[in-house]
């Protein structure tokens, strides 16, 4: 579904991504793990069209999308739940969700999507008229995911969805991602929480200093000595 080939990204002289290649099969969960500063967020932002790569190709359903502006990439069905959630704190929950449905591809299906989001996260329906800034961290993460779903994405990139959440809430968020995947959503999961994301992933890539250093199924990487030493502290 998504094929990334030899992606190079620079911030000025500093190279953030160095020949990154990876693939996401339709209906799968792909985890990209790595330490802080390994290039995970840069990779997501490049695919989303927020920054332009220097070299390399990104193709989605066979069409080249590298260098396309973000609103066009979004409208093809690639959504993202950004790091730190980026909800609109002064707007209500309902307004936040509306903001996700502004894409041309999503407009006609606004009501159906809203029902889907509310049935998945009933707490959002309860708090629909509350300003989003008054929600707890977990609820804000649900809102960020719900808002992204309002755009009717086919592939969603989650950037650190567990960041700053209590362990019980992290489980809830990951459960929601697994549910979405079961319903057919293709997921790219970028996480510092390596153990959790590898358990969820069909396929995983380890990113170090802007390069892919290891790849395999989630289970393989969980069993890999290098991964266990570097990321799981075992």
């Amino acid at each position, binding site marked *: 579904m998504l094929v990334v080939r030899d992606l190079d990204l620079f911030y000025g002289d500093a190279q953030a991504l160095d020949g990154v290649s990876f693939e996401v099969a339709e209906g799968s969960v792909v985890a990209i793990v790595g330490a802080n500063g390994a290039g995970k967020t840069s990779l997501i932002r490049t695919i*989303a069209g*927020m920054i332009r790569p220097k070299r390399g190709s990104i193709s989605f359903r066979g069409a080249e999308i590298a260098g396309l*502006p*973000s*609103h066009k*990439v*979004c*409208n093809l069905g690639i*959504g*993202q739940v*950004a790091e730190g959630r*980026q*909800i*609109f*704190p*002064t*707007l209500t929950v309902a*307004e936040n969700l*509306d*903001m*996700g449905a*502004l*894409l041309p591809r999503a*407009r006609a299906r606004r009501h159906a999507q809203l029902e889907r989001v509310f049935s998945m996260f009933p707490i959002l329906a309860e708090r629909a008229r509350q300003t989003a800034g008054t929600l707890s961290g977990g609820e804000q993460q649900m809102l960020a995911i719900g*808002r*992204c779903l309002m*755009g009717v994405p086919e592939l969603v990139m989650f950037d650190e969805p567990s960041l700053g959440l209590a362990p019980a809430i992290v489980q809830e968020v990951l459960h929601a991602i697994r549910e979405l995947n079961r319903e057919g959503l293709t997921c790219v999961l970028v996480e510092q929480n390596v153990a959790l994301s590898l358990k969820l992933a069909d396929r995983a890539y380890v990113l170090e200093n802007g390069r892919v250093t290891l790849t395999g199924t989630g289970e393989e990487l969980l069993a890999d000595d290098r991964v266990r030493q570097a990321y799981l502290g075992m």
Partner: protein
Amino acid sequence: MKALWGEMNGRGRVVLAVAVLLLLLAPTVATRYLVSVLTLIFYFVYVGQAWNLMMGYAGQLSLGHALYVGVGGYVSAALWVHFGIGPWLGVFPAVLLAASFGAAIGWLGFRFGIEGVYFALLTIAFAEFTRIGFDHIDVVGGAGGLFIPYEEARLGEWWNLRGGQLFFYYLAFGLAAIAVLVTALLARSRLGYQWRAVREDEAAARALGIDAFRAKMKAILISSAMTAVGGVFYAFYYNSLFPAQMFEMSRSIELILGPIVGGLGTVFGPVIGAFLLTPLGEILIGVTEALGINAPGAKAVFFGLTLMVIIYLVPTGVWPWLSKTLGLTGRRS
């Protein structure tokens, strides 16, 4: 109308309808002076609303809106004075030129990521350059000013904006009403939502697939075009234009105070703001004169102090507080 109606609950609609009716009938009883003050209020509602679209809704701070007033006024006045082209036609090139300035500022600012106060500086710079430029354009009178002659025979040519106080009263009222309606419509449109998303968090808006550049360009184009129409009104109402008077920064500030005091990003904020501040200015002139205070700037000091008090008491603007206190919007409990 429906968008505007939707802003209010039952009580709010009654208040709005009564206010509109009173303003429509006001000239039958009001003194000439009061009518002229109300005309000025409507003018500030109109231009304040145009600015509010860009700042209040799209979150882009312009401190140079006098530029669009001035360009709109000068183009239409010059076409009338030199070529006899009436403002009913002249308004189009006036709007076009002002919107071109808006497009240039927007493109420079938004394409190169000049944001916040730096963008505001860019808008000031454009207004100042234009003021200096107009000082030296002889065809519009340079620093000496451009005057629209008063011709008794033309009074009543409403399409050429030639008329008495009453004519300008209703014209200004119409402009203000249209501005409020347009704002109510835009606020509920797809574009209005895009503006709010960009205003709240541009990075998040882009992540949701909103074309932030395009949304901001539309904001400055609509705002500058609307403001230019206000400039045409201004030129034919006052009949005299001076670069220092039209493009000066204080003119830009003057037109943004209403929406700020009334409530940014609200449909009725600029209306309430203009109805508070314009009379306040007039009252202060009277009071300082009555007290025999002749010190230059005395009025400005009192005006500033009053603004500080209002903003201290209702930091998000008078309208949000007023509508809540009187129960004019939202569901009543």
